[in-house]
């Protein structure tokens, strides 16, 4: 059984006015039951013991209904019972910061975005958000776990409009507020005001920028685009539930079938990717998952070779592994846990960004994801970014608008020949990963450094 409460606050200002300011509270409980290997889940936001008992009954009834259809039955990998409480660390409680102060910061940053855009920016926005989730987990196996996770962040965006053209520029990474498990200190560290003019300016410049060149080029992806690249082409296909087909009805399956485990060449020897729920401040960081399994670090791809999946107690058993590696999370009290990414990180290499650019003859450097699409096995993808710069003979050249690139996952990662070093490595939050039916939105993290991929098809469909 899980009891989950969430409080949230978002403030968004747009063109000098408040677009939306919302405080929200959401709480309830859910019970997952396993009867004769079949699952039932029921949940309610109505408090009281009477309701809990009714919901428990409903969950058992649903499990019995599940068993009416024959087929696979669940066997759970063992987990040690534990009693514990954990809180994600932060310095400044975002719910203690005065609303008026938050507004003042956002309004002044947003104004500078417009100033920077010089009349071309039709819509300028600044937003900040905070969320605290308190969850309690109790199981008939004897665990009782409490966790409190505080997230906070802020961002700017500028939309510039020209004849038949719309261009977006954001800071720090796309149109999302929450960026990690921090307090208000994360917003202060962003220096929104200091970055605002540039955001407006670049949005306006993008209207005049040339098209991204077409054809095979070497590309260097900034960490803001690596987030999406890792998420879609490694994070999702290594989810073991997808591999077993249990997401087939919605998001799809995976090309990383179990026969490939331990031997498939996922990428070049520069590519080592881990699932790490233990990195501080990640959006996929926790002490226990929603099955009570400790959060951990698992190597998914080791020097290019596919080594492991993110798993649950049920799927680990099915794969013949002794224990789950702790990737089961539910989006609140009213959802069953499913396998979710934790922080899926590309381990750093030894290049600086300057060295990488100097070493590139004919390429494009790209920042911040703008569009994404990938097939249901996670092979053919096409991703677009907000902005790019040509690289000619080892130097950054002209700005290009709406750059995009396409590829097939293992071929693309095989072309990875340079990964940035520790100094360039950065962990980002992705608060909008959708999966499951009913829909569940997960907060996950992705860390990487700027990375180069050789001979990638860019400028598709222009």
């Amino acid at each position: 059984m899980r009891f989950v409460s969430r409080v949230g606050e978002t403030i968004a200002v747009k063109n000098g006015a408040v677009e939306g300011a919302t405080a929200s509270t959401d709480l309830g409980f859910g019970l997952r039951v396993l009867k004769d290997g079949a699952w039932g889940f029921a949940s309610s936001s109505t408090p009281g013991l009477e309701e809990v008992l009714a919901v428990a009954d409903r969950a058992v009834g649903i499990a019995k209904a599940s068993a009416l259809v024959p087929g696979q039955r669940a066997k759970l990998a063992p987990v040690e019972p534990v009693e514990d409480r954990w809180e994600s660390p932060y310095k400044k409680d975002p719910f203690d910061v005065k609303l008026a102060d938050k507004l003042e910061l956002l309004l002044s940053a947003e104004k500078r975005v417009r100033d920077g855009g010089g009349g071309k920016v039709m819509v300028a926005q600044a937003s900040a958000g905070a969320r605290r989730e308190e969850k309690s987990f109790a199981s008939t196996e004897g665990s009782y776990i409490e966790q409190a996770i505080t997230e906070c962040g802020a961002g700017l965006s500028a939309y510039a409009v020209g004849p038949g053209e719309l261009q977006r520029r954001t800071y720090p990474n796309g149109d999302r507020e929450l960026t990690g498990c921090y307090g208000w200190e994360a917003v202060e560290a962003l220096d929104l005001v200091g970055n605002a003019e540039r955001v407006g300016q670049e949005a306006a410049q993008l209207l005049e920028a040339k098209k991204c060149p077409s054809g095979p080029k070497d590309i260097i992806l900034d960490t803001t685009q690596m987030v999406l690249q890792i998420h879609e082409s490694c994070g999702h296909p290594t989810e073991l539930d997808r591999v077993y087909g249990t997401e087939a009805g919605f998001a799809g399956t995976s090309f990383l079938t179990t026969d490939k485990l331990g031997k498939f060449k996922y990428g070049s020897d520069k590519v080592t990717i881990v699932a790490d729920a233990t990195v501080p401040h990640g959006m996929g960081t926790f002490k226990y998952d929603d099955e009570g399994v400790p959060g951990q670090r698992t190597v998914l791809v080791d020097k290019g070779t596919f080594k492991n999946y993110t798993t649950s107690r049920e799927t680990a058993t099915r794969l013949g592994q002794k224990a789950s590696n702790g990737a089961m999370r539910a989006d609140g009290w009213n959802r069953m846990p499913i396998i979710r990414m934790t922080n899926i990180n590309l381990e750093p290499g030894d290049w600086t960004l300057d060295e990488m650019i100097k070493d590139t003859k004919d390429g494009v450097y790209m920042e911040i994801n703008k569009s994404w699409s990938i097939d249901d096995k996670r092979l053919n993808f096409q991703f677009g970014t907000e902005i790019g710069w040509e690289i000619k003979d080892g130097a950054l050249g002209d700005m290009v608008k709406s750059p995009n690139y396409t590829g097939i996952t293992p071929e693309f990662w095989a072309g990875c020949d340079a990964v940035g070093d520790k100094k360039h490595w950065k962990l980002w939050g992705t608060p909008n990963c959708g999966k499951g039916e009913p829909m569940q939105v997960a907060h996950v993290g992705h860390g990487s450094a700027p990375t180069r991929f050789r001979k990638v098809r860019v400028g598709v469909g222009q």
Partner: protein
Amino acid sequence: MTAKERIQEVLEKCLRFASADQTEVVVTGQDTYLTRYATNYIHQNTAETDTQVSVRSVFGKKIGLAQTNALDDASLKRTIEHAERIAKVQPDLLDFLSLPSKDDAGEITAQAVFSDRTAASTAEERARAVGRITALSVKNGFDAAGAFSTAVVRFGIANSLGIRRYTEATRANLSAIVMGPTGSGFAEGLQSDVGKMAVDRVAETAVGKCRDAQNPVAVEPGDYEVILEPAAVADMIQFLAYMGLGALALQEGRSFMSGRIGQKVTGENFTLWDDGTDPAGMAIPFDFEGVRRQKVMLIEKGVAKSVVYDSYTAGREPGKKSTGHALPPAAQIGALPLNLFMKPGDAEVEDLIKATKRGILVTRFHYTNPLHPVLTTITGMTRDGTFLVENGKVKSPIKNMRFTNGILDAFDAIEAIGKRPALVDMFGLGVCSAPAVKLKKFSFTGGTEH
């Protein structure tokens, strides 16, 4: 106390607790059940009961919003205080006029779609229906996956300007993806009355498509004639709606309609409207501000006619009134059409195939995403049944393809339109009724291995 009485009590209490110049309370309650199956067994099966309260407090031209799902007096009071405090610290939203009044909201005669059968359906009934799909799949040596959900949704809206609304609606969704070794098939159903769900037809269609989809061949990317089944057409329409059929996008110049109202934007045979009162859709006769939903012609015979408004966006244009398309209060993206109808034609899908010299038949799209909102360019993959058509006949299943194409370009290239529209879920919020279409030209820009 009935659910209706409970929600009405919450509405009145909140208005009583409020001290703002204007206050609006929106209560949505839901009992949702979803049975999920994959590889021919039920692997998830859920129930959820929830009631959410949203309060908008207005002081002059300042608006605050707070939400809770705790319904005790103390929580409701705290939520209202929150909304009022948030409103008070703001600068004025200069172009905000007022929440809608009782007069603005209009008289309502239309009914929401509601079915007692859906409201009373059980996990056992859903499991037995899923069992029929998985049994047919097993018999054919395939793997079936999908979901069967039923929901009762309750909407209560009240504001301090006299609006009082309450209605209940039901909805049942069934999807089936059936997978064989080298290809898959898909079918779905959406009904208000679960008793009308054609479970066996969904099973047979998905299994049949799967059978036909085995051993696909690769074809070269490029421009092809294309036949899009309703799910693919509805996918394009939902992105068209999201990118440009709401007033805010138009006003901010982000819409393909910006500056083009009255001009031709697609071929003459394309007509699209929104009608939240048509029982052929998932009718709910008022929007999230309690305003009567009006039928709005969006694109008529290829000409851009209008977009949809809520009270705020209507207030920004002289003489405009809300068309009854407000989204839930926290949405921040302005009004959107949620009950879209594309005008059907007179062809059977077989006729569309017969009229195709060399083209591609698409069952549905997957992971579609906008590339360029003003040009309405989108990209995505085909999925669950893609076929090559030659000389009027389906020649062979083909491997899935990536497309990159403008939606308006596609609707400018319609040669023929199917006569049997299907109702398709839209972003989980609305529905779209769309027929199959045949297009002269559609751009496929890549392929994949399966």
